[in-house]
């Protein structure tokens, strides 16, 4: 329902607007929905607005699940 693409913040114009890049695309985005953003932060952008800062880690649950998948499917039985 909601297309959102990661962007890196290149410049902060004021507390509402920033220049951000998604690969080779540079666009002006709104940053006022996520307080405290800094240059270099990677944010998810939906409809021209940053909606959250992205973390680098995938989180524990994903790691654990992957481990189980490898154990299960890698060997061919549970």
């Amino acid at each position, binding site marked *: *329902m909601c297309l959102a693409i990661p962007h890196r913040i290149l410049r902060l114009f004021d507390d509402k607007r920033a220049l951000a890049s998604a690969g080779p695309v540079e666009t002006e985005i709104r940053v006022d929905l996520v307080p405290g953003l800094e240059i270099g932060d990677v944010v998810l952008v939906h409809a021209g607005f940053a*909606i959250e800062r992205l973390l680098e880690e995938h989180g524990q649950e994903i790691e654990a699940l992957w481990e189980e*998948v490898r154990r299960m499917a890698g060997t061919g039985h549970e």
Partner: protein
Amino acid sequence: MNDTRQRIALLSKALDLLTDRPIKVMEVCGTHTVSIFRQGLRSLLPPSLKLVSGPGCPVCVTDQGEIDAAVSLAGINGVTVATYGDMLRVPGSGSSLMNERARGRDVRIVTSADQALEIARNEKTRLIVFVAVGFETTAPSTASVILDAHRDRISNFTVLDLHKAVPPALEALASDADIDLDALLLPGHVSVILGLSPYGFLPERYGIACAVAGFEAEEIMLGLVEVARQIKEGRPRVASLYGQAVRAEGNPFARSLVDRVFEPGDSSWRGLGEIPLSGYALREEYSSMDALKRLDISIRRTPPPDGCSCGEVLRGVMTPRECPLFGNLCNPSHPVGPCMVSGEGSCAAHFRFSAGGDDPWKR
């Protein structure tokens, strides 16, 4: 074979091992629907896993009467309607915004609410109606520009507020015995705003397995593996598999902006009907920006087109192909229902990737 293909083959195998009985999973979010199709993931699923598309496209669920209101607004002299591209094809009872644009009405595509406000700032002689659709992910951006317009006294900016809330719709689906869902793939970007707690009732009260998932092929497959595992173990819960973006508490600041501008209101969903408190109504303080009040237009309930099974498709009790109109009377060039209109609507997706026949690559 590349890395991704290897990892996905592994996930597909795990899914095979985990589904030892027929299970029905609904992907709630339309972006998931499109991603599943574009990546050809259906060809990798075990036959016992039935994947149905939920109401997750704000375009699909926009009620006919709501489109009619947008069309009426576009017909008023001096009015410019600004909205997202996917809204243009949605049919009302008589016309669509695309049709109105072809007839010379001023209908413009924006990719952000901010651009709509920008039009209002630059073209003072026009009255701008921003047709605001979307769920929790999109509502904060609308709230933010409404606050801007209010502060800067932009008097020619108005909003046709059609925002909808996801959890009440999930409740309606979960409690519908016909649908009989085993699991839900929860929408990643709605959850970015909402966090995880609004979904707690799904496993607790309805025993539905849940996973919040991202949108890459791998993330979607992982989500399916997770719910299959929950089902097999008989331990439904809300798993969070989109940890990069989704915090347990969501984005409280964005929600606070929404709260300032909107209050819960009843809303009518195409296919699902009226769902109490599933909409975001503009608060009294901002009613001068309410396009309906400003231009004295009302949203009228109109019956869905004859034979249209969008309700059944959205609720997951019918597949698109089972609708009597699918393919011949209702197709992407002549959409009858909303599920055919949006590229990610489940009917359009089925039509687009299966050319109206049976998908020859489905397992």
